[in-house]
């Protein structure tokens, strides 16, 4: 029911929305909960376990009950807290966790069996028979569990990530936060003020009290106006600080467009901020806790502070006859506010015997609510007083069990809050988060005047830490009443008394946990699921701890504290994963010939971040194998070209360049002649192979190293490590030139013929012998030519500055076609290199040393190098290590499988009998057989031996012959020709 003359909503702007298909009106500034309450809708949800009818318990983001589903179709968003979601015109809201509807929910039958479904029910019940778990119990439980549901459709909303920086981050904008922000801002500090709510002001929006001689919310408006005008202040409302991390890093979720209708399509739904703050002031306030009295969960029963929020901020009376129950003076304030607004106060029930009258309404002191009635909403309460029982009719009950300071963020780095006997709650431990000062109610300062002063002081502390001069600021006049509270943790009586409303954990469950020896708070929590709902125990932890303390005969501080972990409020996975969806998951790197390659119909495969052509299908070819076989034959008989720009290229320059390369490679490079290329093997310090590739000497102090595509980043890091950490006195510099050059392999018997049609001056075998390199000119552009081969053919790699990459590729392709050649892809490249026994990272996979690949003689005896000492350990050169061999099927058409293992003929295919494994496989059109490279125990000494290949996964078994890893042209005549 809307109350005339109350609230900070905009009554000029009516907003229509729907709840469960029915249309309602609210005003601008309303949440779903306030608008529904204004329409006398109290039933908003069903609880998780017993499907109990529920209304809102709170008026903020800590809400455990009123969770709803927004929108339908792809944008369907479950578990939205109705107490925090603002309404907008056309908003579609649905209740959840019920069937067929909210009023008649079939699953509420669970409530009748609550005696069976209490704590530990699942653990005890679904144990036997064992086989039932997977087939029967789990599917049923999974179907029954969960609150709202996702649509299952692709999420069309966009989220974003962003970074922000400041001197002082102020978390919360109640009196303490505003005062802290104002002080820091006036002192010239770079300030971010973050507020979880849609409006700045905190409790000042919900209480009837003056600050600086004017209504609190007007003082808020003035402060916000001043802050907005300052360049050094960033105001972030609808922004929840969800986590505190090392070195002043804070995670924050900003709700950008979820409260707007038809927001701009490019606007994100939410932004996940990483805020780096030199200092922070935590002014997150406090949360009022419910009282655990019997049947305290009916719609219409809510915290007293929520009742005041609905009344004072939203102009809504949550009931026509409201009763108030509490153990502290805020209960009186609630009754006074209601009476002043003309709402009937049925009774004020104060558990304290010595409390006096405080307004024009009935008061019962030393009294407790012990029962309630009303299936879908509160109708009546039963009160126990010294004089006996009394029933009172009421459709709303405001309960106040005292305040819990919002210590949550102070726990995120393992800080444990400490118990305060006067406040009857936990307060933050000093210094729990380095650089964070806690102020106001979050620190246990409960009066408005105290909070303002505390915010000011906290700002001073923060400013001192960033060496900022503090401006002359004084806290304004405000309410300064004492906070009087007496313990009231649970009320004895017949019915169940809820602690955790969403997960349906009652005082009985906690006592049962204690009785079954789950006496540690961490055990109790997991046994009962208390604190594991979406509010993460914000409403129930302290109460549950008190009940556990009572049940185990300990004091609260001895029983334990709760550990709050990030996030402070639930964060959507889509928000955490913002920017990393689809193509945004990883950057894409494109070769200069990419567009032409895609146009030619070549499927692209990922190689690291790069995209490389798999094969180039021609008309009539139905499978990749047909294309690949053709491309291999083309290279072997004519000429083929392929883009090899993705291989890492590192410029190594300096007076000590040669010496440095000698140190990182196993073989010598200082002795390499200028204009020549040498194959190099690079080890890790533990003796295993890191990478391989060719290095060319372009000048006396100038080399260019090539790495594998996958190894480029790792090798660069390694070179920098070796230089900076091991030999910093060597005068050498590395610069990646991978991107400077577009490089193409030209391979096949006609490769030189083709090149001579492109190069400005012709080459021959004398001017450009095998392993020669140097500058060449093409179309007047200076490039580089390397006579190297990864196919075993007469081959070159030609490089040109990348801007000409596409043009050169086009020219090479045209000439290749004229010579019966063309492009070849990674599949053909792989076949060509396997036929020739060249290794890749399939072979040098991290557990392979130089000896294993037959390259131990490449470790020069004349010098030290990285990995040399380790490579010489006895175990590293044992004959029976898995060593590189070639393998071919005894019947050529029989398949070989990558990853398959070897067993001796006649031996069982078991782990103990393992003789090795296959690393690379191809069908060789040249040899008309499947071929493989692999590692076999003592392989080089077992040439000609037959061995069983078993692929247990795919069910393939092939008898193979162990052979030399070079299947063709072992003398290298083709390469040198």
């Amino acid at each position: 029911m809307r109350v005339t003359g109350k609230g900070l909503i905009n009554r000029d702007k009516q907003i229509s929305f729907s709840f469960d298909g029915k249309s309602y009106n609210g005003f601008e500034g309303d949440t779903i909960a306030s608008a529904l309450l204004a329409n006398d809708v109290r039933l908003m949800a069903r609880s998780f376990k017993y499907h109990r009818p529920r209304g809102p318990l709170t008026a903020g983001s800590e809400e455990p009950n009123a969770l709803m589903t927004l929108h339908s179709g792809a944008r369907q968003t479950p578990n939205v807290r109705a107490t925090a979601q603002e309404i907008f015109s056309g908003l579609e809201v649905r209740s959840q966790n019920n069937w067929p509807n909210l009023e008649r929910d079939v699953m509420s039958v669970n409530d009748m069996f609550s005696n069976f479904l209490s704590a530990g029910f699942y653990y005890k019940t679904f144990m036997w028979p064992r086989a039932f778990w997977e087939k029967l119990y789990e599917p049923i439980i999974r179907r029954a569990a969960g609150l709202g549901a996702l649509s299952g459709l692709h999420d069309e909303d966009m989220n974003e990530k962003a970074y922000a920086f400041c001197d002082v981050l102020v978390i919360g904008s109640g009196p303490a936060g505003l005062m802290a922000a104002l002080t820091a801002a006036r002192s010239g500090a770079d300030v971010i003020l973050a507020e979880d709510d849609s409006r700045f002001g905190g409790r000042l929006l919900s209480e009837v009290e003056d600050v600086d001689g004017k209504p609190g919310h007007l003082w808020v408006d003035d402060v916000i106006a001043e802050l907005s005008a300052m360049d050094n202040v960033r105001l972030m409302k609808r922004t929840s600080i969800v986590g505190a991390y090392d070195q002043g890093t804070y995670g924050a979720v900003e709700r950008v467009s979820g409260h707007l209708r038809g927001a701009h399509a490019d606007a994100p739904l939410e932004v996940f901020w990483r805020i780096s703050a030199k200092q922070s002031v935590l002014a997150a306030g406090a949360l009022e806790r419910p009282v655990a009295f019997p049947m305290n969960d009916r719609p219409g029963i809510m915290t007293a502070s929520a009742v005041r929020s609905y009344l004072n901020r939203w102009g809504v009376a949550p009931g026509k006859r409201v009763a108030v129950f509490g153990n502290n003076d805020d209960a009186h304030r609630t009754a006074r506010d209601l009476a002043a607004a003309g709402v009937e106060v049925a009774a004020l029930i104060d558990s304290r015997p010595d409390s006096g009258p405080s307004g024009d309404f009935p008061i019962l002191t030393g009294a407790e609510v012990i029962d309630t009635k009303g299936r879908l909403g509160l109708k009546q309460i039963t009160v126990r007083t010294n004089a006996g029982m009394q029933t009172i009719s009421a459709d709303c009950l405001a309960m106040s069990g005292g305040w819990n300071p919002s210590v949550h963020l102070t726990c995120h780095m393992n800080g444990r809050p400490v118990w305060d006997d006067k406040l009857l709650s936990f307060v933050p431990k000093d210094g729990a988060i380095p650089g964070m000062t806690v102020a106001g109610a979050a620190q246990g300062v409960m009066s408005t005047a105290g909070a303002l002063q505390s915010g000011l002081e906290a700002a001073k502390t923060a400013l001192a830490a960033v060496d900022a001069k503090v401006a002359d600021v004084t806290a304004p006049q405000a309410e300064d009443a004492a906070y009087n509270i007496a313990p009231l943790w649970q009320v004895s009586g017949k019915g169940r008394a809820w602690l955790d409303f969403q997960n349906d954990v009652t005082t009985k469950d906690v006592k049962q946990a204690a009785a079954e020896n789950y006496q540690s708070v961490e055990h109790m929590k997991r046994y009962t699921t208390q604190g594991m709902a979406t509010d993460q125990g914000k409403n129930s932890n302290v109460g549950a701890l008190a009940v556990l303390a009572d049940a185990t005969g300990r004091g609260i501080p001895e029983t334990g504290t709760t550990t709050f972990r990030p996030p402070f409020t639930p964060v959507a996975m889509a928000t955490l994963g913002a920017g990393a969806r689809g193509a945004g998951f990883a950057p894409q790197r494109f070769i200069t010939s990419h567009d032409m390659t895609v146009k030619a119909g070549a499927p692209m495969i990922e190689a690291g971040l790069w995209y490389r052509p798999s094969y180039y299908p021609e008309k009539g070819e139905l499978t990749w194998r047909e294309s690949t076989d053709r491309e291999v034959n083309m290279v072997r008989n004519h000429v083929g070209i392929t883009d090899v720009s993705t291989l890492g290229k590192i410029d190594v320059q300096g007076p000590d360049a040669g010496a440095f390369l000698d140190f990182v490679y196993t073989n010598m490079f200082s002795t390499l002649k200028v204009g020549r290329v040498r194959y190099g093997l690079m080890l890790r310090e533990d003796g295993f192979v890191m990478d391989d590739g060719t290095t060319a000497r372009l000048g006396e102090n100038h080399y260019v190293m090539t790495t594998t595509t996958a190894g480029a980043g790792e090798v660069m890091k390694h070179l920098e490590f070796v230089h900076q950490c091991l030999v910093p006195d060597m005068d050498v510099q590395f610069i990646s030139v991978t991107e400077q050059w577009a490089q193409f392999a030209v391979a096949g018997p006609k490769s030189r013929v083709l090149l001579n049609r492109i190069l400005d001056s012709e080459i021959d075998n004398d001017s450009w012998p095998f392993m020669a390199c140097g500058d060449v000119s093409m179309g007047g552009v200076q490039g580089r030519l390397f006579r190297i081969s990864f196919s075993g053919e007469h081959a070159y790699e030609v490089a040109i500055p990348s801007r000409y990459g596409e043009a050169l590729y086009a020219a090479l392709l045209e000439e290749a076609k004229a010579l019966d050649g063309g492009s070849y892809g990674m599949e053909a490249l792989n076949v060509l290199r396997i036929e020739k026994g060249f290794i890749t990272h399939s072979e040098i996979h991290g557990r392979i040393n130089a000896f294993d690949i037959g390259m131990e003689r490449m470790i020069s005896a004349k010098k030290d190098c990285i990995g040399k000492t380790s490579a010489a350990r006895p175990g590293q050169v044992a004959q029976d290590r898995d060593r590189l061999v070639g393998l071919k099927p005894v019947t050529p058409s029989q398949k070989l499988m990558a990853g398959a293992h070897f067993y001796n003929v006649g031996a069982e295919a078991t782990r103990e009998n393992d003789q090795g494994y296959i690393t690379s496989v191809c069908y060789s059109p040249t040899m008309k057989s499947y071929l493989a490279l692999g590692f076999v125990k003592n392989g080089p000494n077992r040439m000609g031996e037959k061995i069983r290949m078993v692929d247990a996964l795919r069910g393939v078994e092939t008898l193979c012959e162990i052979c030399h890893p070079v299947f063709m042209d072992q003398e290298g005549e083709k390469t040198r020709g």
Partner: protein
Amino acid sequence: MVNLVAKSPCAALLPLSAGNVTLTEQHPDALTSVAPFAEKEVEVSASLTVTHGVAYPAVNHAVGKDGARAIWFGQGQAMVMGGKVSDDLVQLAAVTDQSDAWAVMRLQGASSADVLARLVPVDLRSSVFAEGDTVRTELQHMMASITCVGTDCFDIMVMRSFAKTAVHDLHAAMKSVAALSI
């Protein structure tokens, strides 16, 4: 003689604009990595002053203007934009032509720092990052060099092969920032 046509890294990708921010490709005459050998920085600086009118830049700084600029590019390394460096410089420094290795983009407009705040984990607001400041950092998921070359004006360099993704990421952030101010 074969006719080779040049293509810039962002050809067909730029220019783009959204809201008050524009993204354009820059075409410096040449990009040259200059990494001075041991104790040669002063001589390198002198050489650059002759050829480009700029000194070797201090850490996190860029010197010069469009046409001739030296940007600190990492430990012991500068990127010289503009004409060719002296042939003799190879005696003093590792000199590497990088003219084709990097895509150079310019992000300009009142909200350009807000756009970068969505992609770059470094504070680039004008109060802390002004003309002549440069950083090596990350742009979304890729290595980048970002230099403030004027008020609300940044030169962003990413490796050439990343150009398409960089433009996509920048454009998405530009559009989002533009949408927020509507």
